[in-house]
């Protein structure tokens, strides 16, 4: 989610009047009369709470707000009268019933001017629905989990917690058959239970899901009524007809299957927004999957019966607007329209079908038009899937949009490498029946670029964000922090306790193999510490935080009678996201180069330099920065070493499964914004980085290390993921990271200046399909960065600017020429 979707220069395209109104209205932010701020609801008991802090353990910026949120939400909460015998029911049944009442009877139903879709409010924080004893227990478990998570974060290990979203519900099923059929499916399962099971946990879970099935139906009835009331008062004939059409849509979907494109979009939106309501969390990677695939039959049908693409764009424009209102949840928190947390309602378009065939269709292009017209805007997040047989027409459109947008308004996902990772996962987890050559192409991405299967997969794709670099710090300290950490809040220095194993005092690590062995041991400790920390949150979520509505949309939950939070999904994983990969690899390479190969210093001397943040050790620091090998240059030795580190940490991750929910751990590399924040926690590193400088981002090489350009950078990324072999995971592709790896490359505008250069850029993308990683974000050189480079040339010495094919080191070309390049980059795309 580190992507740059917003840009000062890109202007939205020609939008239909109603869409333009809604889009502009959204950007009015706090000035709006209407918004989708959290509605808060309580059972009214003395002990009741709503805000679930463990959801935010992976968002360190929010830690200091937890108690405020907890109290203020509770104070603002409206009390909902409870039915007789409420607390005698199971927790999932209570949650289902409580949320049904909150959504249908208490949350306002509203229609926005000109809007073509029903379903405006959905952000809510609802009661935990616990008894006094349960709440007490939960609070005490939460306090322990919080302490553990905060310590993990403050000591530089990273962050971890079982969180919401990050999956693709089985929307296709609902759009096609409606909740009606889902209800019948679950009822049949329930009826088939033994009396004992009916009285037990399974029965309770299925009853909760059946209640949850009714929520969208009842809310649709309410909206239908609202539409008709407004139609009656409406003076404008056209709008009146629209309102009546909307009412008819609500009569049909999402309870029944959709019959056309309009109903399908309405059904999808309604079903989707209630997932966010059910989870009490707006848009956290609750993603749509292959939108252009499962919506295509409805598109085709509506086109055939005379609906214009222009009208479809109006419907989709409304859909886009609603997705963005997820951000209203905390609209008054923070300075930027409440955009305080990571969102990512992602959808994929295009991509591979069976046997490598290409699945691009007319709806793919229609959706690209909408993306282009609506951009820049934050949600929903588009992700275009490319592969060997991607047609030129699609690549042309992609490159056109990238060059016209000052940065890609979508992520690119690469099928072959991605599918290799998922097939590896199937092998590692023994899930070949669920992920295999015959269905792996139906994978899709959630959140930012995290690859999962669709409709039956919860893989906790952002739940454990580990700073791999921490293991090196523990080596320097023989299992202790090698420098004490200062607590920002209390100002106190931490004690240096023996956290990791004793791997030997630095002076005893007299060859690199010993050093690497120590690193491996500390890394294993770090991973284990995460697993222990995560379990504290997973227990709470699985026991006290059921999401019966979401569970009915995830295959496996009803069948097993387990909530999705209990690991009920057919594919139930949780993910380690490796952060600081390149910083760690480069630091290991620097230790090898400086200490063991070139003997520029001893290990204790190097550690001393790090303790002093390189101050007084500038010559050594420069050698680390500029002489030691680096990952990201297509240098086989460095990249092979990167692959070795990759194998080490990913192999270790696969060794673990959650105790409470039997979710296997899997690896990925998404760094969200952690690589920035953790840079202030982790100390100076052996690659020459000073404390408080950024760490490396996801799978990207360290800042400034990729001196051989985008192709070399991409080759390195592909090799670090596993490269290629005749024994590939998919075809010849290998991939250690089923969850995918975030890769960002910045290009100058001149790379895509004209038709000729756009062709060349297409060649780059075709090459990336063969050699690169799983996902690519294309950024365009930011003039602000160039200005910063003028001010701080020491940080940008490798910054190459390519001007019509001529490479020049930006910092060495002299002030006037620099100014000219900045001026040019600033005016491109206008």
């Amino acid at each position: 989610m580190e992507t740059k979707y917003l840009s000062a220069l890109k202007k939205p395209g020609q939008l239909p009047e109603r869409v333009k109104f809604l889009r502009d209205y959204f950007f009015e932010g706090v000035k709006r009369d209407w918004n989708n701020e959290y509605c808060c609801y309580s059972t009214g008991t003395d002990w009741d709470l709503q805000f679930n802090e463990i959801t935010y353990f992976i968002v360190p910026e929010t830690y200091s707000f937890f108690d405020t949120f907890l109290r203020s939400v509770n104070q603002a909460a409206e009390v909902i009268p409870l039915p007789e015998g409420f607390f005698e029911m199971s927790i999932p049944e209570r949650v289902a019933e409580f949320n049904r009442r909150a959504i249908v009877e208490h949350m306002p139903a509203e229609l926005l001017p000109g809007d073509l879709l029903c379903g405006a409010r959905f952000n809510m924080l609802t009661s935990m629905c616990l008894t006094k004893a349960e709440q007490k227990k939960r609070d005490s478990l939460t306090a322990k989990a919080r302490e553990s998570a905060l310590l993990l974060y403050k000591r530089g290990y990273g962050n971890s917690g079982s969180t919401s979203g990050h999956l693709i519900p089985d929307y296709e099923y609902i759009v096609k058959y409606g909740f009606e059929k889902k209800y019948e499916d679950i009822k049949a399962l329930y009826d088939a239970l033994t009396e004992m099971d009916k009285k037990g946990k399974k029965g309770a879970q299925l009853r909760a899901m059946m209640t949850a099935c009714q929520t969208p139906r009842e809310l649709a009835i309410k909206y239908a009524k609202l539409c008709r009331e407004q139609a009656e008062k409406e003076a404008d004939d056209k709008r009146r007809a629209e309102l009546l059409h909307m009412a008819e849509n609500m009569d049909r979907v999402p309870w029944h299957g959709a019959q056309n494109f309009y109903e399908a979009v309405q059904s999808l939106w309604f079903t989707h927004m209630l997932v966010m309501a059910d989870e009490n969390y707006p848009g956290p990677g609750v993603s749509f999957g292959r939108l252009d695939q499962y919506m295509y039959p409805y598109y085709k049908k509506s086109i055939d019966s005379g609906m214009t693409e222009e009208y479809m764009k109006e419907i989709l424009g409304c859909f886009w607007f609603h997705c963005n209102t997820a951000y209203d949840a905390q609209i008054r928190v923070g300075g930027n329209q409440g955009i305080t947390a990571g969102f990512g309602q992602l959808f994929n378009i295009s991509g591979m079908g069976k046997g490598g065939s290409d699945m691009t269709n007319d709806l793919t292009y229609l959706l690209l038009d909408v993306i282009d017209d609506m951009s820049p805007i934050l949600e929903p997040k588009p992700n275009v899937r490319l592969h060997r047989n991607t047609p030129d027409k699609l690549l042309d459109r992609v490159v056109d949009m990238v060059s016209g947008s000052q940065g890609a308004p979508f992520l690119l996902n690469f099928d072959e490498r991605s599918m290799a990772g998922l097939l590896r996962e199937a092998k590692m987890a023994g899930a070949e029946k669920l992920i295999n050559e015959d269905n792996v192409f139906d994978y899709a991405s959630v959140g930012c670029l995290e690859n999962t299967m669709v409709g039956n997969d919860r893989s906790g794709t952002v739940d454990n964000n580990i700073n791999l670099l921490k293991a090196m710090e523990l080596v320097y300290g023989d299992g202790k922090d090698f420098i004490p950490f200062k607590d920002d809040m209390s100002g106190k220095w931490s004690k240096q306790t023996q956290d990791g194993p004793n791997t030997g005092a630095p002076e005893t690590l007299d060859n690199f193999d010993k050093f690497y062995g120590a690193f491996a041991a500390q890394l294993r400790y770090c991973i284990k510490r995460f697993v222990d920390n995560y379990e504290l949150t997973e227990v709470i979520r699985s026991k006290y935080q059921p999401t019966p509505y979401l569970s009915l949309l995830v295959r496996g939950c009803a069948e097993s009678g387990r909530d999705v939070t209990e690991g009920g999904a057919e594919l139930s994983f949780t993910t380690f996201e490796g952060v600081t990969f390149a910083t760690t690899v480069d630091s290991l390479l620097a230790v090898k180069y400086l200490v063991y190969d070139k003997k520029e210093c001893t290990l204790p001397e190097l550690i001393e330099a790090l303790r002093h943040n390189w101050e007084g050790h500038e010559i050594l620091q420069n050698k680390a920065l500029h002489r030691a090998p680096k990952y990201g240059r297509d240098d086989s030795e460095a990249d092979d070493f990167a692959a070795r580190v990759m194998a080490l940490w990913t192999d270790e991750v696969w060794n673990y499964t959650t105790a409470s929910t039997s979710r296997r751990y899997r690896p990925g590399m998404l760094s969200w914004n952690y690589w920035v924040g953790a840079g202030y926690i982790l100390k100076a590193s052996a690659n020459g980085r000073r404390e408080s400088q950024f760490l490396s981002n996801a799978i990207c090489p360290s800042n400034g290390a990729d001196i051989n350009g985008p192709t070399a950078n991409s080759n390195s990324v592909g090799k670090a993921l596993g490269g290629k072999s005749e024994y590939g995971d998919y075809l010849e592709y290998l991939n250690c990271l089923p969850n995918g790896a975030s890769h960002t490359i910045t290009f100058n505008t001149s790379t895509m200046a004209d038709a000729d250069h756009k062709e060349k850029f297409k060649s780059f993308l075709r090459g990336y399909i063969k050699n690169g990683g799983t996902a690519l974000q294309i950024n365009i050189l930011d003039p602000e960065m160039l200005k910063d480079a003028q001010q701080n040339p020491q940080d940008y010495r490798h910054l190459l600017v390519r001007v019509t094919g001529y490479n020049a080191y930006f910092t060495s070309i002299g002030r006037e020429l620099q100014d000219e390049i900045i001026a040019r980059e600033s005016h491109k795309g206008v």
Partner: protein
Amino acid sequence: MRILSYQRMSTEDGPGLRTTLFVKGCPLRCAWCHNPESISRELSAEWIGVRCMGCHTCVDTCANGGIVAEQESVRIDNDKCIRCFSCVSACPTGALERKGEDASISEIFAELIKDHAYFGADGGVTLSGGEILLQSEEAAELLRLLKESGVSTAVDTSGYCNRADIDRVLPYTDIFLFDLKLADSARHEEWTGVKNGRILENFEYLTELRREASSKFGLWVRTPIIPGATDDEENIRSIADIIGDKADRWELCAFNNLCRDKYERIYKDWNFKSSELMTRERMEALVAAASAAGAKNVRYTGRTRMEEERA
């Protein structure tokens, strides 16, 4: 083979995406050269000031007094330098750079093939200057290996070479990028140090070869458009007469000033250091003049002068 550097993902050295190999040593002395460090075949060290931390490790390392500490810089004394490059190895920051190295064909090939996946249908490898055909035997071997691996090849030449040099690389070259800088031989000598007779003979030789059905190589002509040197319409029309319809494409390459710092690094004054870029109008006018004179597929490349912002 004495090489200078590689450029990967090159977009201006022939069709498609390419990897370009630059070599050291050129028979011409073009006054505008934007890779002046490639002219001499001699190896050398260069000091890049912006990278220097002022530690003077280099001064202490050099046993021959080849590096002199100055107030805020160091200066390489090329008379005393024995090209041992111990200063380059010792420099912590990479401020001292070695220019030129002797690499084996297999090493070079390994580097050039790395981007094979990105070359696509049109792209490939370009061997460029200095003057690649000064090392035609090694170049031919390299090109042969590339062709064997299915890589499309281009040779970027000044045309100032022996016919035998061309013959050597001919079987393995898909496209020649051939420079025609000035049509008038005296002016050519004035600006590049050599007369153009040989160049024109070689150009004629290539165009004749292309008339034979068996030879299938492409021919692109390139003319650097240098203010006050080559940018007059008369020159362009005269070159157009030479080219006739015999080339596949003619690129007018607009003057580039980004190499200004390179001249400072080799302690040379550059005649063009204050020259402005060509204007877009001027480049378009030259393309029009060339086309009017009967040349086909003419275009210009490179940056032109910044225009005033238009409302």
